[in-house]
């Protein structure tokens, strides 16, 4: 039987701890997908000479310095040395854009800079150059704790993402939370299910044989439950991405990570 004392103690504890909504993973129990991988895949991520994502980072470094578009400007012409100017930036994205009145992802920021400041041809989502630039920029945040979603103006969009994360969808009628909050550490057809922490993006997935964005991952989880995936750059995917980043608050960035 549950005693009155135990209930009172539990209520006190709940009052002292940060507010967690039902099903949410407490901060000290949050684990990157890295913690779920085998030793070989970890070693591949840890060693820059064997991490295939580093090739994209190097490509991104070259693109950073390359003058393009009718403005004939390189990213470096405005932002200087990425090692200092881009340090910690990816850990804050998606970030609220005051002019647009909504959050934008790092990929969208790169696309906006190309259009507005370089006046260059747009880079399609998932194109090699866009992934290379975002990998290079996010790599400057490797080790930085995630703080995206802290901005009060971003809060309504974090909440929108949370609602989508909790909503069952698709012919299989499953929500993100059903797998990634309630069943991490279990196996789906033999493959480990993780907590869906977005710490390593863009990352190299052995299954894809290439680098891919967080949006690509979310779209494949949606197709997995036989739902109609949201379009790249859609407000829903941005909100989900923002919610995942805020849910990973404090975890260090790993870009470019490697996943099975």
């Amino acid at each position, binding site marked *: 039987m549950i005693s009155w004392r135990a209930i009172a103690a539990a209520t006190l504890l709940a009052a002292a701890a940060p507010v967690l909504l039902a099903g949410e993973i407490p901060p000290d129990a949050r684990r990157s997908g890295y913690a779920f991988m085998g030793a070989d895949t970890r070693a591949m991520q840890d060693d820059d000479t064997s991490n295939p994502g580093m090739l994209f980072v190097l490509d991104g470094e070259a693109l950073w310095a390359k003058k393009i578009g009718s403005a004939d400007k390189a990213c470096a012409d405005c932002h200087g040395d990425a090692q200092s100017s881009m340090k910690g930036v990816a850990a804050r994205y998606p970030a609220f854009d005051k002019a647009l009145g909504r959050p934008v992802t790092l990929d969208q920021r790169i696309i906006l800079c190309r259009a507005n400041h370089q006046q260059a041809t747009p880079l399609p989502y998932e194109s090699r150059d866009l992934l290379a630039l975002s990998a290079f920029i996010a790599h400057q945040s490797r080790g930085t704790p995630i703080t995206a979603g802290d901005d009060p103006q971003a809060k309504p969009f974090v909440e929108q993402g949370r609602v989508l994360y909790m*909503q*069952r*969808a*698709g*012919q*299989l*009628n*499953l929500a993100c939370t*059903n797998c990634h909050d*309630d*069943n991490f550490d*279990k*196996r*789906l*057809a*033999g*493959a480990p*299910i993780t907590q869906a922490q977005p710490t390593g993006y863009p990352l190299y997935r052995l299954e894809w044989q290439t680098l891919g964005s967080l949006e690509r991952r979310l779209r494949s989880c949606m*197709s997995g439950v*036989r*739902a*109609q*995936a949201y379009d790249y750059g859609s407000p829903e995917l941005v909100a989900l991405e923002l919610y995942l980043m805020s849910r990973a608050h404090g975890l260090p960035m790993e870009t470019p990570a490697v996943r099975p």
Partner: protein
Amino acid sequence: MPTQANKLLPYTIIGDGIPVSLTGSPGDAARGRALVLARTTTCILCHSGPFPETRFQGDLAPDLTGTGNRWSVSQLRLRLVDASRFNPDTIMPSYYRNDGLVRVGRNFAGKPILSAAEIEDIVAFLATLRD
């Protein structure tokens, strides 16, 4: 042409089961076994069972070994048609349902996950799983 909602065969729930075959005839247990093992049927994404030939089994759900001891054919049929009748919060999909779902993918819209005949085959197979 837009995808037409597939008509489901009518069925009657009595107590905690569907006593009568959806198709009116008994299923084929051998075909049912093959279906349960096929990834596209989705059972072994979550379940494991007496299937020594595959390593790729899930552990989100009970092992199917001995299912035929624990459940009647009537209960198994309802479980597959709509598992939420047993547990409203279950993660097990309703395999014979085509409405009330959110954002179903274009290729799947309006269709149940399994056909009535497939459900009967799987029910026939599950009933043979006795320890």
